[in-house]
């Protein structure tokens, strides 16, 4: 099995987090890292195939699938009809039978068309059936934002699918993670909903050229701090990062920044460890606040860190569940660095 070998190699040479900040090395973008990860997964394992709308057509899903069909043939690179429900069933069946299919969606909004297959089938399959092959499939989907994409093309469904034990959900933020987590998603015996963010595609960082794995179930501390913990996810990390810097420089607030990375399962251990130190928590949702993953984190942290919490867990996120199209409406809709800073200041001075 190529994937067990990769995992073994990795524990030998220990390519982990620290690596990406090493400075030296090849810089590539988030989008390029995805493309490389897809290509390497196909190279590593002939059982990997990719399917989707527009993956073998001009555009190539923002270039992430360019060149694949020339290299691996249309047997392994399957341009599909616009039939998300059936194609989701198809990858389920293929995974049951032992292939490692990756189904790709240009927008995660389209996942809803296949919600029955995801929720009623994929998320239960391994629990109700003995699955000698596991259920190694990846649903890759892009979260978008802005330019008036509006109600049906700017949603983020990480939280809607976060309550299903049988489906992993991840939201990588960095080029390093997106590559390593994609390879882990393909390697995983469990189905994975792999949510990318369109606005991160241009971000560049050092990414090793060889294949490597980043765990699917662990958050990561991206900045160490002592006054408050801020949890970001996917794009919201970008604002968190800026806020953390400003808070340190201008407000003498030392914030610990956790990039959630995994939505299901939640890495509560990392969050709790941090909150035990800081006593304060803000979750920056990349989505509507209500019923966001922040609700679950808040509830769980409050249960488990009651005595060390100095102020109630707070959440910040979109103004609602329908994203408007107009420019100013969009501006009003999304919170930004400013709002995070203000919220942190309120939390830091809570009760004082």
């Amino acid at each position: 099995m190529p994937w067990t070998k990769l995992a073994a190699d990795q524990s030998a040479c220990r390519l982990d987090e620290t690596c990406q900040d090493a400075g030296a090395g090849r810089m590539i973008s988030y989008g390029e890292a995805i493309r490389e990860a897809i290509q390497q997964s196909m190279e590593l394992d002939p059982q990997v195939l990719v399917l989707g709308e527009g993956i073998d057509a001009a555009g190539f899903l923002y270039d992430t699938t360019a060149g694949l069909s020339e290299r691996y043939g249309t047997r392994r690179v399957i341009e599909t009809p616009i039939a998300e429900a059936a194609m989701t069933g198809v990858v389920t069946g293929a995974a049951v039978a032992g292939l490692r299919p990756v189904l790709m969606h240009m927008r995660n909004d389209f996942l809803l068309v296949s919600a029955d297959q995801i929720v009623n089938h994929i998320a239960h399959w391994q629990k109700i059936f003995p699955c000698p092959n596991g259920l190694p499939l990846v649903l890759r989907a892009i979260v978008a934002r802005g330019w008036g994409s509006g109600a049906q093309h700017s949603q983020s469904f990480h939280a809607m699918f976060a309550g299903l034990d049988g489906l992993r959900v991840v939201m990588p933020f960095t080029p390093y993670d997106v590559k390593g987590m994609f390879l882990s998603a393909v390697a995983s015996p469990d189905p994975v909903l792999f949510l990318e963010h369109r606005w991160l595609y241009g971000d560049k960082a050092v990414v090793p050229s060889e294949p490597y794995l980043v765990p699917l179930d662990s958050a990561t501390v991206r900045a160490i701090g002592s006054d408050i913990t801020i949890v970001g996810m996917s794009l919201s990390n970008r604002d968190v990062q800026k806020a953390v810097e400003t808070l340190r420089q201008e407000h003498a607030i030392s914030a610990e920044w956790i990039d959630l990375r995994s939505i299901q399962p939640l890495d509560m251990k990392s969050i709790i460890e941090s909150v035990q130190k800081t006593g304060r928590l803000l979750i920056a949702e990349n989505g509507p606040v209500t019923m966001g993953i922040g609700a679950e984190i808040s509830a769980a942290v409050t249960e488990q860190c009651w005595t060390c919490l100095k102020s109630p867990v707070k959440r910040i996120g979109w103004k609602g569940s329908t994203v408007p199209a107009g420019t100013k409406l969009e501006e009003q809709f999304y919170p930004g660095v400013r709002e995070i800073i203000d919220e942190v200041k309120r939390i830091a001075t809570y009760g004082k």
Partner: protein
Amino acid sequence: MQLEQAYRLYESMLTIRLVEETLVQEYPAQQIRTPVHLYVGQEAIAAGISLHLSDSDYVVSNHRSHGHSIAKGLDLGSFFKELYGKSGGCSSGWGGSMHLCDMDKGIAGTSAIVAGGIPIGAGLALKQQYNAEANITVIYFGDGAVDEGVFWETVNFTGLKKLPILFVQEDNGYASQTPSSQRHAYKNILPIVERFGLMTAELDGNDPLAVAATMGELIQKIRMGQGPGFVRCHTFRWYGHVGVEDDTHTGYRNAADVLSWRNRCPIKAMEKHLLVVDPVAASKKMKATEEIIAEKIRCALQSAKEAEYALD
């Protein structure tokens, strides 16, 4: 049909029938606590198809899954255990009647969502095609499942990719208590799916010999890569949609129809055939077969009753 095959067909149908009659008997004791959708009356279809399948061929089934699974070789012990929610059940007690499975036998899974299993079947077939196997996938569904869009999406994808699939529509005239005429804008689905590149056949699903013969030919063609197939099998379920009661009194099916279909019992038809083609031995052989099956069922049932409940 060769005699040996005919006996196998008979045995397969009779196994399904006797298993389900056992369920009818045992159900009132309320130890089988899972909704059962009986296959009685429709046995010729799964039996006639499975005659031509090996363990490497897949089947995907729906809520009415007992016959499909048993014909494909599901161990009766693990079947009964599953229905009793016992440890050792084919789905570890998690599935119940509507979620049978045995990958070693090619029983890939069962969805209780109408049409939910259909695209999954296409994925199984995609793997068979991908690996250039000569194996095929049989997808079972009813006249109701074709109402769902995902059925049409799958038919299109199957025709496009020429997947090695046999679509088996068990047309018993009703989805739950609603007749096809209240749900379909068309009378016959076959000329429609033909346009998607599927080979088609229309069958009396209660005629085991016809089923076995037509399915055999079609499956052979599918194996040889001549494309996917779709068979519409006219049939009738004897019991209510769910549970073990005769529901004729509820009035949605006319009593004369129920009777006329009951008179067209596929197992009786097979008995008659065997008596004709094997006049000397048939009677005895059938009796022996029945006894063997009954004994198997007794053991399986017993083992299920005695087994521990499945626990988390």
